[in-house]
C-alpha cells in the first residue's frame, strides 16, 4: 500500500479512483501518563508521553484507513490529510483520510 500526501503516486499512474477512505481513533490519556504530564507541566516544554500517545493513535488511524482502502480494492491512498480534535477533557480524536486509488 503506497501512502502519499500528493495527488498522485510518484513514478506510477492512477488507473482507478475508489473514493474517500478514512480512519480514526479516540484515545484517552491514561492516569499514569496524566500524572506525569501534570508534573511536567510545572516546567513546560514537550510532554513526551502525549507525543507518543498521539503518534500511536495516528498510526492506528492510518492503519484503519489502509484497511478500508484495501477492502475497496485499492493499492494506494493519495492526498492524505490528518486532523486532530480535542473532544473531551483527556481525550483526543485523531483521524486520517485520503483518496483510495489503484495505481500501476
Amino acid at each position, binding site marked *: 500500500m*503506497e501512502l*502519499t500526501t*500528493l495527488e498522485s503516486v*510518484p513514478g506510477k499512474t492512477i488507473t482507478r479512483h475508489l473514493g474517500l477512505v478514512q480512519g480514526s481513533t479516540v484515545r484517552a490519556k491514561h492516569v499514569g501518563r496524566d500524572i506525569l504530564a501534570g508534573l511536567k507541566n510545572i516546567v*513546560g516544554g514537550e510532554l513526551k508521553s502525549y507525543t507518543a500517545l498521539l503518534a500511536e493513535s495516528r498510526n492506528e488511524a492510518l492503519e484503519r484507513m489502509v484497511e478500508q482502502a484495501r477492502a475497496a480494492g485499492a493499492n494506494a491512498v493519495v492526498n492524505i490529510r490528518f486532523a486532530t480534535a480535542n473532544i473531551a477533557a483527556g481525550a483526543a480524536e485523531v483521524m486520517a483520510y485520503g483518496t483510495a486509488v489503484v495505481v500501476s
Partner: protein
Amino acid sequence: MEALIPLLALIVIGFVVGRANERRHYRELAALEAALRDIEVSNDRGTAELGAVASGTLVVGSVVIAEDYFKRIAAALKSLAGGNLRSYETLLERGRREAIVRMKEEARCRGATRIVCVRLETASLSEDFSGRRPMFSAELIAYGTALVPKAQRAA
C-alpha cells in the same frame, strides 16, 4: 498571603527551568536544522522532479508541547494590554520547528532527499469542560511525502 507561596514557587520554577529549557531547545533545534539542511522541504506538489523519483512515502513528525506557569502568567498579564504574546509565540515556534525536524529525520531514514506537499497542523489539547482553565498544551504536526531519488533506491 501564605496561599500565594506555592503559586509563586511554580512561577519561579517556570521562569528558571522553563527558560533554561527553552534556550537549550533553541540551541538543539539550530544544530539539528543545520544537520538536516540538505533535505529540501516544500509545500507544493513538486511535480517537476517527480520523473527522477523512485518512490514516495508518507512521513510524519509530531510533538506535544505545554506551557509552564511563568509563561501562563506572562501571557495573562500581556493579554490585558493586548499585542503579541511572546511567551506563547516562542512555545509554538519551538514545537513546530521540532515537528519539522522529526519529519525530516524520518525522511532521512528512508533515504529521501526532498519532502513535498508538506502540511502543518496545530491542535489544542487543553480544552476542558470543567470550567477551570487547564494548562495550555497543543500538538503540532508536520507531514508530507518524502521522495527517494532513483539512484539511491538500491542503497
